């Protein structure tokens, strides 16, 4: 946790420094607002970094006003599952890039349900088909959203 907080402070400092350096090359009007935000960000992130390094650990009374992740799962399981879901998300985006949305939707639903959720072949196929039908009716027929063709279709000239 402490190491992570340290890294996040360093990240914020790097972001602030980068924006200050970049803003120096812009016109005054364009640079003024980013600079007036980056400088205090740099100061606050540095203070927080020093607090993390030299200060006492945070008490429960200083809780942030945001959700907490569940803590009742073993750390190695957490790591494995985070990497797993992250891989699925990246795979989804990669499929959309390669095949386009209309083809990815049923394929992704089928693959996830079959191989991640261990649902039977038949149920996975039915769920994928229903999802595709809903997607087609709602987004393509009713709302007329134009989905980009996938890279493969473009390459094949389809």
């Amino acid at each position: 946790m402490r190491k992570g907080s340290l890294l996040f402070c360093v990240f914020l400092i790097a972001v602030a420094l980068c924006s200050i350096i970049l803003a120096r090359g812009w016109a005054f009007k364009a640079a003024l607002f980013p600079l007036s935000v980056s400088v205090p960000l740099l100061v606050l992130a540095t203070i927080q970094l020093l607090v993390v390094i030299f200060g006492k650990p945070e008490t429960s009374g200083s809780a942030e006003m945001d959700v907490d992740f569940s803590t009742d799962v073993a750390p190695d399981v957490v790591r494995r599952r985070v990497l797993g879901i992250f891989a699925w998300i990246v795979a989804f985006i990669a499929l959309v890039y390669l095949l386009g949305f209309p083809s990815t939707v049923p394929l992704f639903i089928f693959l996830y349900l079959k191989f991640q959720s261990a649902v039977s072949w038949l149920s996975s196929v039915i769920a994928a088909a229903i999802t595709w039908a809903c997607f087609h009716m709602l987004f393509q027929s009713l709302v007329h959203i134009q989905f980009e063709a996938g890279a493969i279709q473009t390459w094949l000239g389809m």
Partner: protein
Amino acid sequence: MFDAFIDGLFLVLQWKAFSLMLVGMSLGFCVGLLPGIGGAATLALMLPFVFKMSPAEAFAFLLGMHSVAATTGDITSVLFGVPGEAISAATVVDGYPMAKRGEAGRALGAALMSSLMGALIGAVALALAIPIVRPLVLTFGSPELFMLSLIGISCITSLSGSSTRAQIKGFAMGLLGLLVSTVGQDRQSGSLRFDMGLMYLWDGLDFVPVLVGIFAIPEIIDLAVRGTSIAGDRPPENLSRGVLEGVKDTFRHFWLVFRCSVIGVFVGILPGAGGGVAQWMAYAHAVQSAKNSKEREGFGKGDVRGVLGPGAANNSKEGGELIPTVAFGVPGSGAMAILLSGFLIMGIMPGPDMLTKHLTITFSMVWTLAIANVITVLLCLLVLDQLAKLTYVRGSLIIPFILLLVFVGSYTANGQIADLMVTLIFGLLSYVMVLFGWPRPPFVLGFVLGKVIETYLFISMNRYGFAWLAHPIVMLLTAVLVAVIAYPYVQQRRQRLARGASA
């Protein structure tokens, strides 16, 4: 005037206008549930259909659709932690933790009933304010709007934890949000900022992919990590009782709902501020209403007041936004700008005529806002039991569908694959923020308000130099700003003194 008020009701209740309102409401219901497809985009898509309608029918159709989208947007926010609309993001902060705690029914009941109260208060405000709002809108120029945006950003003090460290983190996150909002072409000089050589970034980052990533991705990852349903392994709540409890919560905290509705109306009246600001100001106000630090720490962990405040403000701002649109033809938001096109299609010129010649139509809008929300909330309350059961479905079964909602939603913002990358990047940033205890609401507030603040600051400086600082309303708003920043500290000090006295 009373005759026009009653005639307005009869206009809406004519079978054709009423049927069209129901059609609009059904569309708005779906649009509200789906992340990304905003009410404004749907208004634009439906505009061609109003050519053959009478003005009363057209406004019943368009307003019925638009007002309902804000109400149902809260449903996905509570159930899956995915904001159904950009203006429903604040509901996620406490609504989703309630669902995780097995209180989805209560959270939904509270969100819908507060939305209804907000919509009704917004409609009443619209009815009452039209004759008297002119001086208010005309006295708010860019300096006053800039100060109002600063008051909005000062809510960071309430959206961060109570300790000094939490305040530092909160302000740092707010500044990061402001910095992210500067990505893209600068409106004043035309320079490109942080565009990384990508044309996609020239227009800046769109709200939808960023907000959906910030709130949805960490929740999806957490759901996958837990390996349970959203509500965990808790025994299912008595859903009907939970929904009823949420409805009762609205009346238990009636004054909070009322105050947040007034915030929504006020922010809605002022052009440029928008629902994104109203919800967070209302949320911050709900946090400020906590009596002590222990109560305050419950926010973000599933306090029902964190659902009631934004729920009410989201809907009341619809009435507020209509006031300048109808009275002066000055749209309060993007959606209202599209509605303004509807006025022109109907051959109606917004302005004084709406208060004299077309007063009946103006009141028909008030009735549409009220009736559409009453019907939607009553229908939703009937099916909430079934909706809330989704939180007890095994996580691995609903994750692919939530992912689909999230990414289709972000894609609809600009129709580019890059939108998906933005969602992923901000989702990961948000995951790291939650993991290491950096609060997300200040970041979102900074991101939403950044462009508004910068734009109004430059207009004020160009128009008045530094003289705008001496405007009476600016000075008054400066005092309010100081009070908003100081209030949490004064509250803490008072509590410390009270504890010292009792010890």
